[in-house]
């Protein structure tokens, strides 16, 4: 089991989600974050006050997956989030000690396997 954490561009989120759904990755959490990744700092001016925006807005995705899903997930994010310029973001793959599904109390592998309802994946 791994936790895939990806930081991507705001405007690429939709593409990433499309790729993830195509790759059958179904459970994820996203949050709005600010960060700095070496991209050129945007200069903004407000009535004579000039600032360099050292932090840019990014989206962080967290996806808990079973081992054989790590590569498809990572590849999907790479396909969706890349523009080729500095500031595209990072993907981190972290080991996970334990996973619980709150509804059923299922653990680990079972907890990150999508439930089948009526023979149809849901």
């Amino acid at each position, binding site marked *: 089991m791994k936790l895939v954490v990806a930081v991507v561009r705001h405007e690429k989120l939709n593409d990433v989600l499309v790729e993830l759904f195509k790759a059958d990755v179904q459970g994820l959490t996203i949050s709005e974050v600010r960060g700095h990744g070496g991209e050129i*700092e*945007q200069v903004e001016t407000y009535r004579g006050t000039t*600032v360099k925006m*050292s*932090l840019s807005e990014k989206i962080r995705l967290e996806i808990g997956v079973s081992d054989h899903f790590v590569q498809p997930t990572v590849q999907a994010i790479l396909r969706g989030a890349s523009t080729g310029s500095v500031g595209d973001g990072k993907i981190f793959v972290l080991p996970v000690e334990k996973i619980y599904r709150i509804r059923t109390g299922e653990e680990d592998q079972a907890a990150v396997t999508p439930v089948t309802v009526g023979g149809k994946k849901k």
Partner: protein
Amino acid sequence: MVPADVAWMIVATALVLLMTPALAFFYGGLVRSKNALNTMMMSFISLGFLGVTWALVGYSLAFGTGNAWLGDLSFVFLKDVGLGEATGSTIPHILFMAFQATFAIVTAALISGAIVERMKFGAYIVFLVLWSLVVYSPVCHWVWAPTGWLFKMGALDYAGGTVVHVNAAVSALVAAMVLGPRKDYARQAILPHNVPFVLLGAGLLWFGWFGFNAGSAIAAGSANGFYKSAAVAFVTTMLAPAATLTVWSLLDIIRGGKATAVGAATAIVVGLVAITPAAGHVSPLSALALGGIAAFPSYFALLYRAKTKLDDSLDVVAAHGVGGTVGALLTGVFSQKAWSGLVDGLLFGNPDQMRIQVIGVAAVIAYAAVMTFVILKVVGAVMPLRADVGDEGLGMDVTQHGEEAYTSGEGAILVLPELEAPQVALQARLANEGGKA
């Protein structure tokens, strides 16, 4: 000179000027937060560039005597535009010029709704100025100058159904087609970022529109050769949008079970647009009917447009084009001599008025479409019209204006002017040392 007329027209001019910031809020709320400032600036910048263009040249091209098609250069740089009465009115010539300036400004700003979130700001300004001179001034001359061919034919356009709304909407349609859709259009949901702004804008537009329509009497009430009374236009401007809002909300409820806020704001604008050409020509009850009827075509045009490839982003065509056309045609139906002192429409025994109204609308559509296409092609040949895809993704606020609408300021490093001095000194020293080596 009638003092009451002068006083009212001063107020009306200020009211119409407010419509451009109101439009900025209406449009600004409808776009995504990363494009809010750019969208609002597209309206605001018109206050500057077109205010100047109008005073220097535009007014003369529109209201100079000229011929049936175009004014002349007799009022260029406001020459001979003084304190004497404007022809056929009871107000000073300069005041009439200022009142008409506010129309030129807001009409051009209307177009921006079709090309938001993607057009480069510089190219937009160039387009705006050229459009005002090449499209707005001539069309304004046709319809409102006593020498214009549509005016002489007897086309009724009280406050600008064709000159302002059909004109801007057709140009918007062409501009949306020439620029092409936004990169995200029909690929992902593009939602309004601030619906309260949209409602605020619609409310302020309604307020300003009292100046727009009732001010188009060019008088407070005295018979001045043009129109009978500002009060008629004032009341119809109140009642028509009320009817549109009512019908629109009922359509919303019947179709989806809920009355929507963005729908309500749109309905107000559609009602205002529709009553514009009819404002001083119809009875208050006719205004209610006109507003109610006008809800239907625009409502379904909006639904249809969203399913097409045409990225008329903020539905200028459905609201102003369809609403303006319906209003202009219904003016030919509902006009009543008893209220305007001018002519009767279809319902009151003058079917010929409909023919004239159709000619007016058709002529404006044809001319605005062709000329807007030409202007955009010319501007496009000199400079790129669209921001590149990366800039569009990042947002037009940062890339076109170097500002953000909503920023917490976290992570912003102040660039102090004092810090630049030592750096310059450092660079000079480095250059000297480089010279020695």
